[in-house]
């Protein structure tokens, strides 16, 4: 049984950041990158299943992204798994989630994967679309916001729990093959030691382009996307102040503010 785990290297904002000149995204100077938190949980879920069942389960992380995105794959491989896949080509730039899902679906087919574990959403753009779109592309069953997975290899169904409102959980049975989008808190992702990450560099990362997967330039990037970012804005915010100090100092400051607001300084 093979589980494909698509992960994303997400952008993390600096405290003070500026937007790009075209206003469509944050200036890269103010970005750090890391493995998407949800994907960390998805990978951990795959790792735990492999530990539970042994070699009958193969787990493969993949990402759609440039060379630098390999860091996230290495972080996964630092914890387990034997190989990874990275898909990239310039023309994939600015693809929307549907396009990314199309690429992932192609990889899943090429790999003859039995399951796809994706994160519920990515912390940077937060579309929550990629995972479920992969299921649509493949015409597989799906379960979103999964908080528990129960698999016996070779069974035709799997049992999963899904998180609902108000702490309620729904236990469902899903036909295989299936796509699961994994929710935070499903497990406790382990730490990837730096040694582990370094040693993972010896594991192969297969690099593919969209054409290797049978996709045309027109299927991907802006050309293939049906949505696009127009601009990013920072909505205006009010002012806040954290009042600290001793009780007396806090009271004095509070009184000051009240006076100020009433215009009676």
């Amino acid at each position, binding site marked *: 049984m093979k589980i494909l785990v698509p992960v994303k290297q997400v952008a993390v904002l600096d405290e003070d950041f500026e937007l790009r000149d075209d206003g469509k995204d944050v200036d890269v100077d103010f970005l*750090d990158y890391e493995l998407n938190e949800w994907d960390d949980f998805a990978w951990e879920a795959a790792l735990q299943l492999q530990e539970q069942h042994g070699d009958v389960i193969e787990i493969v992380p993949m990402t759609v992204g440039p060379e630098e995105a390999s860091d996230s794959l290495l972080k996964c491989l630092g914890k387990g798994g034997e190989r990874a896949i990275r898909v990239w080509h310039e023309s994939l730039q600015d693809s929307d989630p549907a396009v990314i899902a199309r690429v992932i679906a192609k990889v899943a087919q090429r790999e003859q994967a039995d399951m796809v574990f994706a994160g519920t959403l990515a912390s940077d753009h937060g579309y929550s679309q990629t995972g479920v779109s992969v299921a649509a592309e493949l015409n597989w069953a799906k379960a979103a916001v999964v908080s528990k997975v129960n698999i016996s290899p070779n069974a035709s169904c799997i049992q999963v729990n899904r998180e609902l409102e108000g702490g309620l959980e729904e236990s469902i049975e899903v036909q295989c093959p299936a796509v699961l989008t994994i929710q935070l808190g499903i497990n*406790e992702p382990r730490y990837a030691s*730096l040694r582990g990450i370094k040693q993972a560099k010896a594991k192969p990362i297969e690099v593919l382009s969209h054409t290797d997967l049978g996709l045309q330039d027109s299927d991907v990037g802006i050309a293939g996307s049906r949505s696009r970012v127009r601009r990013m804005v920072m909505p205006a915010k009010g*002012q806040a102040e954290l*009042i600290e*100090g001793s009780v007396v100092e806090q009271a004095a400051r509070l009184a000051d503010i009240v006076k100020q607001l009433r215009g009676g300084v």
Partner: protein
Amino acid sequence: MINPAHDPQAITRILFQDFPLWMMVVFYISAVAAMAMFVYGCYIQVRKYWRGQPISLKQMQQRIGLMLRDIVSHRTLRRRDTSAGIMHAAIFFCFATLFVGTATITLEYDILKPIAGWTFWYGDFYLWFSLLMDLAGVGVGVGLVYMMYRRKWLALPKLDYHRPDRQTAEPDYDRSWYRLEDWLFLWNLIIIIVTGYVLEASRLVWLQTDHLVWDYRWWSPIGTSVALLMHDFGLSAQGAGELRYYLWWFHGLIAFLFIALLPFTKAKHMFTAIASLSLRNAQPTARLPLTDPDAETIGVRSITDFNWKQLLHTDACTKCGRCHEACPANASGFPLSPRDMVLTLRELSNNTLQGRKIPMVDDLKAVGDGVNQIRSETLWSCRTCSACVEICPVGIEHVPMIVEMRRALVEDGEMDAAVQTALQNVQKKGNSIGENKRKRAAWTKKLDFTIKDARKEAVDLLWFVGDYASFDPRYQKVAQSFARILQASGINFGILYEAEMTAGNDVRRVGEEGLFEHLAETNIAKLAACEFERIVTTDPHSFNTLKNEYPDFGGNYDVIHATQLVEQMLTDGMIPLIRQANRKVTYHDSCHLGRLNKEYEAPRQVLKKIGVEVVEMPRNQDNSFCCGAGGGRIWTPDPLDMDKPAELRMQEAAQIEAIDAFVVNCPKCMNMFEDAVKSTGNDDKLEVIEVIELIASCMQLESSESNETDTTTPTEISEG
């Protein structure tokens, strides 16, 4: 002394006097059997140790010299428990005397006499020999009785074998068989001593008419006193002769039993302790063991992953409980006792490595939740403060063992979420606090001068600032004070600005060796591009690692702690003091400057020179009690319902009358004690203050800005 009428050669003890031949044969067979058993036992033990990993030993001569010094002086045993030390010395030296005495007789009777016909055990020599042996027996006896007294009536908590790392209901919670073993050991020796005296006495009564014996009876004062007593009770010479037979055999057989079982009982500490003391490292905690970066896995998972010296350590432990008593984690109720950890590993290695074959890997696992396994929560409780290593009388080095086991846990990704976050921060941002790299030098903005950028110009003194001095709001003030002191004293100094990464002291102690190596290599590369004479730091953790651990990675620097530097500067009159502090305080030795680097004096000297009187806490210098932050524990919040180590320490300080400050020399201590002084309700009595700040105030360096506490500066959360 000797009656001229007596032939000195006849004044001796006739061995096996009146014994039938078969008895002598049985005796020799028993002796050989006991010796054989002893040798076999030693073989089993040595083979057990040999199943650990190999290590190379350097400077053995020096180490053995140290061992001999410590054994002769009994220094390690007298420390913090003088009576136990003295009594152990009595047992040790007198027992050794008895052993040498017995060996002397064997040498004459079984070796020299049959081979060369030489004899010397008679006349004056014999008489002095008898006296010495008689008195040595007293020494052993008194010592043993004291040990019994300690166990039974003093009921010292450190001799209580209940474990903090197990629940009451667990099978190995109360190691009652250890108590039994202790008592058997004591009783066995006492019985050997007592029967020895009674045996001697019955010989005297038996031979009371023999002038060659009776006239010289007072050379065995104790034996003779017992003999007179027995005589008074109406024991006849014939009766005594008979009693002698039985006692002789009883005494002999339990002594043989003692020898035969020695390698398997507590008694083996006679050998293992000596070996363990000879294998001590100079810096077990300050300089942690290197690993092979290319190895498949690192750290200790199974008992056989320990090196043979560590396996031997586990056998050297005498359960004295000194480490147990000194351990801050144990004192605060964490599931860790260094003693119990060592003993758990001893049990595991005894159970698995004494057989002919080594069992399967699963049975060898040292870390786990089973019986005779070390739990991960135990390992994570350690603060690597080295209090245990410091006080262990037999030279056991607990900290490297703990860190090696943590290395395996880290490799498997098993750790507290908070530690994980801190390590990820270090991986991504070069500091454990999770602050942006670019903000590393933000604290310098409050100064009214610019600190040189050591990357761009040559400096005399390169200041390695460290994470907490760079980012912790409270300690930033200390950093600012230190900068002002250096500036006012006209020192040419600089910092690395954003290029500095955490030195990695905690990262290494947590067990993340790969990350530590990366940090060391990166910092060393950065430092290589700078021109400077010395490195200074206010952080004892960075100090320790730069000084003791970076050399293993090619970074050899002259590293000095801030308090050492200012001590020199004060001595050289380079610091313009405007006033004296005139305060009475107590001073807390940080583990990394104190125990790990043995610098107790410099900070005290500094305080003295600026008019600060130090009133010592009961536990000071090498016995200082850790604030609880070391070994990465600063990253894991201690549970609220526990008395944190820092709180226990603050309560200790609060007992002292008429002091107004608790002086620290370490950013992590500062962080811990700032909390503890509040949570123990001592903040109106004690101020937690750094040595550096006291100096700065005597130089009247505080600018108006830094006097203003940060808390009154409003923090803008976001702008309109």
